[in-house]
Structure formats: structure tokens, C-alpha cells
């Protein structure tokens, strides 16, 4: 009993000392905190035989967010009905319709929008969850510049693959020679610039929000960081995810639209030459 009391008091003393060190205003060195958080070296390594796989903080957040999304997807998928739909089915249908309407407003038809939807919606949800995971003190995945760059490369690959799948190789070629064939190099250059701008936008936003949050944590360690964290982690993360999805959809829509423009131009030319004859 006495021993238990002594252990408890010792434990509580250590606990409150730690808590006070954590909450003391100005108790942390801001530069040191940020410098340690932009150190992207692996936390631990998994060894499989001779192969050693380094695991970084971003990889942990990505895997956790993927697991969350899988659970969410299975939960939303269960018990779909045609009549008397439940609340979660209404939510899923609403999400579906929003993305379909978005795709249609960028010049795709319904069939094309339904082909593109699973990819873009997954991309958006994945980015949102992996950013919002910072609320539970895991590092936001997009803080490691490798993550936004790989996501952006995936988005550009998606644009090219979807362009070919929706329009065929010939249609995709037509999208490259809009408005005149002489602009082909610039249209190709577009595919280099798009991933860089997509990646830097995501990285800059998440990283800037993180640094501001660390600053607030140093100056006012109580209450404020958790309120601001809701904005910078959840709301800004959602905004960036929506923008990423939006831009990817609009780029795919652009390919469709450009291809249609070239087709129209060719048809007009043919009509003109027939009139001359």
C-alpha cells in the first residue's frame, strides 16, 4: 500500500513535470523543432533477407490513411438499397454526384465522367485523409516532398492514360495539336509543368501550415494550437485535396475538350473544301 502510494506519487511528479515542460510558454526552440521535423531520415528499417526497406514517417501515415480509407469504403459499401436508403448511402451518393457534376462541367459526357470518377475521387480522399491524420500527431504525409511529387506524377500519368482510354490514341494526338499543330512542343511542355505545380502547391500549403502551427505551439501552448490545428490540418487539408482533385479532373476535361476542338476544325476544313469543289 505504502509502496503503491510512493510509486504513484513519483509517477505523478514525473508526469506533471513532463507536462509542465511541454506546456511552458517559450519552453521549446522553434528552429530546433522545425529542423528536426524536416529531417526525413527513416525511423526504422525492415529487413527481409538481404533486402532492407527504410520506413519513414510519411510512409507510416500513408499506410494508416490507406487502412482508414479501406475501412471507410467497406463500411459505405455495405447494405446498398434502391428504396428507403440509409443516411450513409445518401452521403455516398451525394459525394458521387458532386464529382460527376464536376467532371461534366469540365466538358466530359456522363460515360466519360463515370470512367474517370473512381480515380479522381480516390486521389482526393487519399490526400485529404493523409493530411488530416496530423490531428492525431502522426506527421502529415505531404510534409515530405517526395509524397506530393509522387502523387502529382501519378496524376499526370492518370491524365495521359485517361486521355488515351476515353478518346483513343488518335483522339489524344488531336488534343496535342490544338489550336494549331505548331503548338505541339508547348502542349508537351504542359505535361512537365503540371506535375511540378501540383506538387509544389500541396507541399507548400501543408508545410506552411505546419510551421505556423509549431510557432503557435511555442508561443501559446494551451488550447490555441488544438483549435488552429483543426483549421490547418483538417480544413486546409480538405481544401488542398479538393483542389488537387479539381485540377486533375479539369486537366482530363481539357484533353477531351481540345480533342473535340480539333475534330471540329477538321470537319470545318472538309466542309470548306467540299464547298469549293
Amino acid at each position, binding site marked *: 500500500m505504502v509502496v503503491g502510494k510512493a510509486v504513484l506519487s513519483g509517477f505523478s511528479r514525473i508526469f506533471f513535470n513532463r507536462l509542465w515542460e511541454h506546456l511552458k510558454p517559450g519552453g521549446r526552440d522553434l528552429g530546433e523543432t*522545425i*529542423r528536426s521535423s524536416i529531417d526525413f531520415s527513416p525511423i526504422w528499417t525492415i529487413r527481409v533477407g538481404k533486402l532492407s526497406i527504410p520506413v519513414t514517417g510519411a510512409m507510416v501515415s500513408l499506410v494508416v490513411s490507406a487502412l482508414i480509407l479501406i475501412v471507410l469504403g467497406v463500411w459505405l459499401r455495405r447494405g446498398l438499397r434502391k428504396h428507403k436508403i440509409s443516411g450513409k448511402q445518401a452521403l455516398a451518393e451525394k459525394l458521387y454526384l458532386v464529382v460527376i457534376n464536376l467532371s461534366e*462541367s469540365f466538358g466530359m459526357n456522363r460515360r466519360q465522367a463515370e470512367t474517370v470518377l473512381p480515380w479522381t475521387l480516390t486521389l482526393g480522399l487519399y490526400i485529404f485523409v493523409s493530411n488530416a491524420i496530423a490531428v492525431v500527431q502522426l506527421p502529415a504525409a505531404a510534409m515530405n516532398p517526395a509524397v506530393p511529387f509522387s502523387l502529382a506524377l501519378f496524376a499526370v500519368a492518370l491524365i495521359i492514360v485517361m486521355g488515351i482510354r476515353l478518346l483513343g490514341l488518335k483522339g489524344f494526338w488531336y488534343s496535342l495539336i490544338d489550336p494549331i499543330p505548331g503548338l505541339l512542343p508547348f502542349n508537351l511542355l504542359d505535361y512537365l509543368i503540371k506535375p511540378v*505545380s501540383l506538387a*509544389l502547391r500541396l507541399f*507548400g*500549403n501543408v508545410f*506552411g501550415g505546419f510551421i505556423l502551427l509549431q510557432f503557435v505551439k511555442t508561443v501559446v501552448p494551451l488550447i490555441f494550437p488544438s483549435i488552429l490545428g483543426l483549421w490547418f490540418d483538417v480544413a486546409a487539408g480538405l481544401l488542398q485535396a479538393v483542389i488537387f482533385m479539381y*485540377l486533375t479532373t479539369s486537366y482530363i476535361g481539357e484533353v477531351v475538350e481540345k480533342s473535340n476542338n480539333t475534330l471540329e476544325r477538321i470537319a470545318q476544313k472538309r466542309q470548306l473544301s467540299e464547298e469549293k469543289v
Partner: protein
Amino acid sequence: MEKSLVALAAALAIGAVGSIAAYAISKMAGKAFDSMARQPEVASRVQTSLTIAIVFIETCAIYALVVSLLLVFVF
């Protein structure tokens, strides 16, 4: 001395680009709301293109943010 110059450069980079980007966004949003008030039936289309344009302007500001962060933490 060198450290303070780097800090000044970072502050100038983000300050100049941020103020200009904010001015550009304000001007564009003002015009867009004006046209929405004049023609409420095209409001949704105006809103879509407004969002895209704001994103592009914001990207410039974020480039400046990245540059100034690099200046502060790398040098």
C-alpha cells in the same frame, strides 16, 4: 550579418509576392461578385472559373513561400 540578410531576403520574397497575390485575388473576386450580382443565372459557372483562377494565383504565392522557407532553413 549574413544570417540577417538571408532573413531579410526571405521576408521580402514572401512579402512582395503575398501582397501582390492578395491584391490580384481581391480584384478578381470583386469583378466576379459584380458579374454574379448582374447575372445571377451564370453564378455557378462564374464561381467555377473564379476558383480555378484563384488557385493559380495562390500557386505563385506558394512558390514564394517555398523559396523563403528554403532560404530560412537551408542557408
